[in-house]
């Protein structure tokens, strides 16, 4: 595997405030193709605010988010027009919500949930769409005979896998994930982690994963950013940050994890 020379995403001086309160500030990093970066920190540390700013769900007060688009090269996503950004959200970007219900259409069948994203980028042939939907359901280990069921009839783990299928079917290059394994029991988490890791490698995806679970980032993320009170207090190679944390807060975070 060669190491690509240009970052897929360049984040510069992102700042978001809620009135006098800082959501996140002075955030800078580059993400290269195929790289997975984890953002950890306790509740209220600004990690979700940052993720939502990056994904275009929130407008930051300051900063630049440069994405290497297929058609026009580097573009500041914050300066894109709304339709342009929405198109990006349907094609090259994907967002996996913590709560699968936020990312799924609950009134539409499993196959429809996956097919809908394909139709949004122009697929029209029903047979092909259904075939691709079934293929993706299989990749996330949902049996073909559940294709016509609605997500409401699925377990939490299955809903989460369905959400991942819906997001990845269009072959995005960058996936944002907000606590993708939160709220699932451990055996289901393991299955999901295995699935995500396989997909990341096979598809050469880049991903930004927000979580408070250090075990999840150790397995999934190449690099880590630790956030506290809206600031990135430490960043580096995942195992270096976890094994030899430099900042007091990271040391506290790492030493607070229960050993199993």
């Amino acid at each position, binding site marked *: *595997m060669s*190491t690509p020379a240009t970052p897929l995403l360049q984040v510069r001086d992102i700042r978001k405030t809620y009135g006098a309160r800082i959501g996140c500030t002075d955030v800078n990093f580059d993400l*290269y193709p195929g*790289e997975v970066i984890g953002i950890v920190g306790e509740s209220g540390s600004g990690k979700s605010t940052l993720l939502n700013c990056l994904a275009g769900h929130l407008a930051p007060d300051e900063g630049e988010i440069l994405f290497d688009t297929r058609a026009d090269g580097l573009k500041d996503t914050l300066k894109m027009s709304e339709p342009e950004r929405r198109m990006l959200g349907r094609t090259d970007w994907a967002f996996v919500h913590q709560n699968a219900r936020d990312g799924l259409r609950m009134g539409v069948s499993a196959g429809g949930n996956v097919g809908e994203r394909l139709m949004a980028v122009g697929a029209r042939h029903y047979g092909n769409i259904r075939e691709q939907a079934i293929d993706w359901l299989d990749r996330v280990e949902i049996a073909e005979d559940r294709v016509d069921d609605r997500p409401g009839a699925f377990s939490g783990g299955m809903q989460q896998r369905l959400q991942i299928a819906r997001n990845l079917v269009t072959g995005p290059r960058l996936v944002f994930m907000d606590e993708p394994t939160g709220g699932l029991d451990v055996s289901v988490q*393991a*299955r999901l*982690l*295995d699935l995500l*890791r396989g997909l990341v*490698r096979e598809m050469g995806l880049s991903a930004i994963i927000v979580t408070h679970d250090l075990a999840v980032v*150790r*397995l999934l993320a*190449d*690099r880590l950013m630790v956030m506290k009170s809206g600031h990135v207090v430490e960043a*580096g*190679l995942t*195992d*270096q940050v976890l*094994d*030899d944390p*430099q*900042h*007091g*807060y990271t*040391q*506290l975070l790492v*030493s607070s994890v229960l050993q199993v």
Partner: protein
Amino acid sequence: MISVRNVAKTFTLHNQGGAVIPVMEGADLEVAPGECVALTGSSGAGKSTLMRMIYGNYLAASGSIIVGDVDVATAEPREILKLRRETLGYVSQFLRVVPRVATLNVVAEPMLAVGMERSAAVSRARELLTRLRIPETLWELSPTTFSGGEQQRVNIARGFAHVFPAMLLDEPTASLDAANRATVLDLIDEAKARGAAIIGIFHDEEARARVADREIDVSRFTPRAA
């Protein structure tokens, strides 16, 4: 191949009043291709600390750690990741894998990561697992449920799967029976013969005597004042 120069290491304990503990200074070490150097010294002398600094999961306070053409002490994370994928292997005593992944895939993964074709990677994985006496009936199962010795052998198979030009071995023969221990020593000899530069920690003195060309006592890098 591996060149450690004047490396120091300190730990700062922010949650204990910011106490700074110097644990190593003036560490120097050169390993040529085809050579195996054993780190020695009593428990706590810093063998694993030095090894982790070379692998990049501990940050060096100063000095340089050149592996191939990368200075691990100052490299960007993505340069270290590339180095670990292609150049620098690490076999620890403990297996850390995603639960639920089949043993065969665990072993094949490092080869797939450098772009080896799947069939070639799987056939080499099978060969290594056979040599390390992991019964074929276990290959499709996740190693997380295996015994300690089996996990260690899976870890060794994984570590030796890709032909790394530089390798770090942390107690590769600990808790293995005689036959498997001999296999591991053969694997180390073969890696040396193809030109790998190896740094190892071996509490097993016989094993050390057989594969190591030189020994370096890390206690001489212990800071005086401490």
